[in-house]
């Protein structure tokens, strides 16, 4: 009798251990509307599940802070992280493991590259052609943790000796790229910083109503990372799966359809790839 109970307990314990071991999480920061963002991320999670055999679930964190926190406390297994946070977290936690870099097809050149840009944009009807003409007007960043929505627009402003809070009448933080576009369209702000992908999506949606006031230098695209507890062999499996993703994969199509991002798979770079950004943000 006692042996039978012990066997049942062992079986149940093994079952839950396997179940827990197989529950992997792919986390992404909310760079866009989470409802839209989760759609391609689920496809990516399914793809990773298929290729690795590990059961991945896609989640969208509330903000950058949550994603950073969860990478630190290892409650996610793979994270889609923007460059600025990658640099910050990597600085705080050198054991953070790099897997791959997201790539996009450039709208202007048609080349697939692991870079993108930040644009400071306005509406053509605003009559603003240079940043200096926007003095006393309202400006919007994305999120203090956003690379193309805050770090690089802020860099472009400071390179012109502009302190945003003093130069503009009001500076808003709208947290998502597409909200900057919507705020522009609705006249709530006069000027704002967005990623080039967001800009091109907005052009496709609203037509040529926008004017690009400033363009940033090339910015390394988002990094796919894992916390230090993910085994090296797993890391290689995930990396191979991502770099093997064909250009016409449903994930890329879904990224374009839902977010307007010109997704074109993943490439293998390394931590050094983000040094240019480290330099820019010094």
């Amino acid at each position: 009798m006692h042996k039978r109970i012990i066997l049942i307990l062992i079986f149940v314990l093994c079952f839950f251990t396997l179940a827990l071991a197989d529950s992997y999480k792919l986390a992404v920061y909310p760079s866009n509307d989470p409802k839209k963002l989760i759609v391609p991320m689920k496809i990516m999670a399914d793809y990773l599940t298929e290729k690795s055999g590990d059961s991945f679930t896609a989640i969208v964190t509330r903000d950058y802070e949550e994603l950073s926190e969860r990478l630190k406390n290892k409650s996610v297994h793979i994270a889609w992280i923007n460059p600025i946070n990658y640099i910050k977290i990597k600085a705080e936690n050198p054991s953070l493991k790099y897997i791959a870099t997201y790539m996009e097809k450039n709208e202007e050149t048609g080349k697939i590259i692991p870079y993108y840009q930040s644009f400071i944009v306005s509406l053509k009807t605003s009559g603003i052609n240079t940043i200096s003409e926007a003095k006393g007007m309202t400006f919007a960043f994305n999120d203090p943790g956003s690379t193309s929505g805050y770090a690089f627009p802020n860099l472009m402003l400071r390179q012109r000796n502009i302190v945003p809070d003093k130069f503009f009448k009001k500076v808003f933080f709208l947290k998502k790229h597409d909200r900057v576009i919507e705020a522009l369209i609705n006249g709530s702000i006069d000027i704002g910083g967005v990623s080039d992908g967001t800009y091109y999506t907005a052009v496709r949606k609203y037509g040529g109503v926008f004017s690009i006031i400033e363009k940033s230098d090339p910015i390394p695209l988002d990094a796919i990372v894992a916390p230090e507890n993910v085994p090296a062999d797993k890391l290689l499996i995930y990396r191979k799966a991502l770099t093997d993703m064909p250009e016409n994969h449903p994930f890329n199509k879904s990224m374009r359809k839902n977010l307007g991002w010109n997704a074109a798979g993943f490439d293998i770079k390394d931590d050094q790839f983000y040094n240019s950004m480290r330099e820019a943000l010094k």
Partner: protein
Amino acid sequence: MPLRAKILTAAIFPFVVFFILGIFRIQQVIEKYESALHNNYEIKAKGAAGNITQLIAQLDTAVGVLSESFEISNALQRADNNVLFDISNRFINSIDTIIFADINGIVVARAPDEYRFGDDISSQKYFETTLANGSYLGWIIIDGIDTIMVSKPIKKYDDVYVGVVCVAFSITKELLSSFIDDPDLVIEFIHKNRRISSSDRKETIVYSKSLKGIIKNTQKPLIDVLLHFEEDKYFSELLLIKKSQYWSSIPIVLLMIVLIIVILNRQLKPHSMIVENILNYANNKINADGLKKNLVDINHTSDSDSAKISYALIQMLDVIEKNFKRIEQYNIELDQTNQKLEKSLKKIKKLSGLLPICSYCKKIRDDKGYWNQIEKYIHEHSEAEFSHGICHECAKKHYPDLGLYDD
């Protein structure tokens, strides 16, 4: 009263009595219903007042929660539009508008209009009042829509403000209707020259009640709330019944009057005719035969008291006629007697004067101066005839030999 009139009266009188009692009963029912209706008005007014008070309390609660949130205070300081919108959007099902403005009056976030921020409200009275007094309750117009707004400052520390949160309800027909939940009731909010009603129906309003002072701003009435009660369907039907009863009573009363007139006419006309004929007779417009003839006609047309009276009068006339005839006969006889008497008197008159008579031969001198034998004179001046004879004394004197009176 003839039998027909009695039957008619017996049939109509109860009908009229019950009809009048019916009208009074309806009037009583109407009065009771009206009283109940007014009690119902009071209950509904209290219900509406409770709902309005609840709305203001809801605004107060919301603005209290939003103004005291540490997260909101931080988000406002960071101009984090997204966080402020997300938080305020959770309240939007129960509140129409939420506005977060920084200390300079720049709107940092607004719900439900996600992308309507950046405007400057620093010159708005509600913004200035909120910072000056620590709170605001008022009627303002946002984007052309009348709203009730409650606002409070958002604090960084107890004595340091970082902005203002405003929550508002749009005063719409739908909102006003939600206070009353009764299709027969109209609620109206009045503030200065602004007037919003839950319905445009005015023509059917029968009663209005004021809830003045229910929404106060620093103890002063902010909004005049008027409740208009529309015509109650059942009460209207009662009034219609009453009206129809009154209207239907008119022909009945008229019919009654006509009937009374007819009955009275039938009853009184023979009497009037009798009186009229008597007066005509008295004024010699008709004679007795005419009067009698007319009375006979009246007698034939009715079997009522008047017929009896006319019959009696005819009998009286007959008696009078007979008496007249008798009197006439007496008169004739009297005339004849008078004539005879006159003649006799004439004769008596002739002999009654001073007759000059001879003291010896007893001859009488006439007017012409001739002396006449007394027999001849009396014969000529009276109806008297003389039959000559010899009295006792003369027989003895003149004819003693004959012994005429010896036996």
